[in-house]
């Protein structure tokens, strides 16, 4: 009973703070309203006995929002992030898309013939989830991760203003790179 109240209470917190993201007028409040929403979801996942997944959700999302605070000052020109600003735009399109999505999902809830449960939950649901996600597809996962890292590195290299010729000279013979921002290990 207590667990039911806590679970639904956390759900309410998650939805309301998710809505607050669009209601508040400050980038910091929006960012951390989203973080609060994710923390509530992570705590809900603890109630589903997926302890590892729940705690990792909290960890990753809080870190991600903190890093977002860095980017929002780095990349938002004229620093509107530091001033009060509206969190919404294209209101009519957004409202139409929201209503349409809600109708489709609600129709799905009502129309789909939900299966009845077969068997019972395994003793360790996290292991079961991991095997269901990864088990037969481990090769795909193992290939995708280096490809994703390579994509990120390639994207940064292509986007970077300075190339290795700026850093190491035209013949790449300069012993220490010429960087505007010095590093911490004497380079």
């Amino acid at each position, binding site marked *: 009973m207590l667990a039911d109240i806590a679970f639904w209470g956390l759900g309410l917190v998650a939805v309301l703070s998710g809505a607050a993201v669009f209601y508040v007028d400050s980038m910091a*409040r929006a960012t951390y309203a989203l973080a609060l929403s994710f923390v509530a979801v992570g705590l809900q996942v603890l109630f589903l006995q997926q302890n590892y997944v*729940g*705690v990792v959700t909290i960890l990753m999302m809080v870190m991600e929002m903190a890093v977002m605070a860095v980017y929002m000052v780095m990349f938002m020109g004229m620093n509107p992030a530091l001033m009060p600003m509206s969190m919404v735009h294209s209101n009519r399109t957004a409202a139409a898309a929201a209503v349409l999505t809600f109708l489709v999902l609600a129709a799905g809830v009502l129309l789909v013939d939900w299966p009845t449960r077969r068997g019972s939950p395994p003793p360790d649901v996290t292991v079961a989830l991991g095997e269901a996600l990864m088990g037969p597809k481990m090769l795909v996962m193992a290939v995708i991760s280096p490809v994703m890292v390579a994509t990120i590195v390639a994207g940064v290299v292509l986007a970077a203003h300075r190339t290795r010729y700026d850093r190491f000279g035209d013949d790449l013979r300069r012993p220490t790179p010429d960087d505007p921002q010095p590093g911490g*290990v004497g380079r």
Partner: protein
Amino acid sequence: MVDPIAMPNVAGSDSPVVTVAPGWAFAAVTVLGALVVVAAVLDGALSARSSGGPGGAPGGAARPFGEAARLMRQRRRTTVQADSLLWRIGGAGLLVTAALMVAVVPLGRWTIFDLDVGVMWFNAMDVMVWALVWLTGWGANSAHSLVGGYRFLAHGLGYELPLMFALVAPAIAAESLNVGRVAAAQDGLWFVVWMPVAFLVYLLGVAAFSVGGPFAPALGSDVAGGVRAELSGVDRLVFETGRYALLAAGAAFAVPMFLGGGAGPLLPDWAWVLVKTVTVLSLLVWLRRRLPAFRPDTFMEVGWLVLLPAVLVQDLLVAVVAVWRS
């Protein structure tokens, strides 16, 4: 609802620690408070000594009490268009985070929250510090305190991954993320003996998430006090208490992770946990006064090119030993 939702928890019936009644959380917070006082008194005594003995700095060992009394009587400073909600959450959150950290640390045989992924829980709480310190810097609507907040995040990008991988080493060796099991797995040989690199990086991480010692530039006097530039009165007192509490919680967590938990001769196991915690805490308070500051703009490379590879090699060695033993 077909299935009733069960309370989250628990490491299973064969857990080496006993979960006590929730009311004992007050006792845990009291112990944390006592550790905060120990750390603050020691810090006061050390700063009096370094500034030339009695008379040099006001108070010495009694400084924290005088400082607390002063701050409690001080009028709260207000700034124009401060985001008070986020400011207060940031300042008070450090103390709450430290309390949530010690919830998974067993005191000998007893624990408050025997979570099966306790190590991850601790890690998630120390990431919360990122958000809270930045929010404290943001809330005041002051340029200097915001600069302090970003300095902390710059340090965070450098120290957090080495800290995470330092916590991985004991978990691999114990084959569990449960703090009680990690402590129990050190029967005979403490993890600190054969994972010294992970231990040192962990201690550096503790200094970092308590915003102290080499990681104090976020509070630097060159930016008028950084994050705490506009903090005054009780707000400042709670923020400072939170920093000491995080240091104490980090010291307490080192005991089951690296120092054998409650293992030791003569004394009962809960007493050994306290003795070891106070020892690590004193070491941290002393050491963080002796180390030079890491510059926020260059620490990232130190973290990723020195600390991270070092601790990854440590993890690899631990993993090889773990595979070889099983």
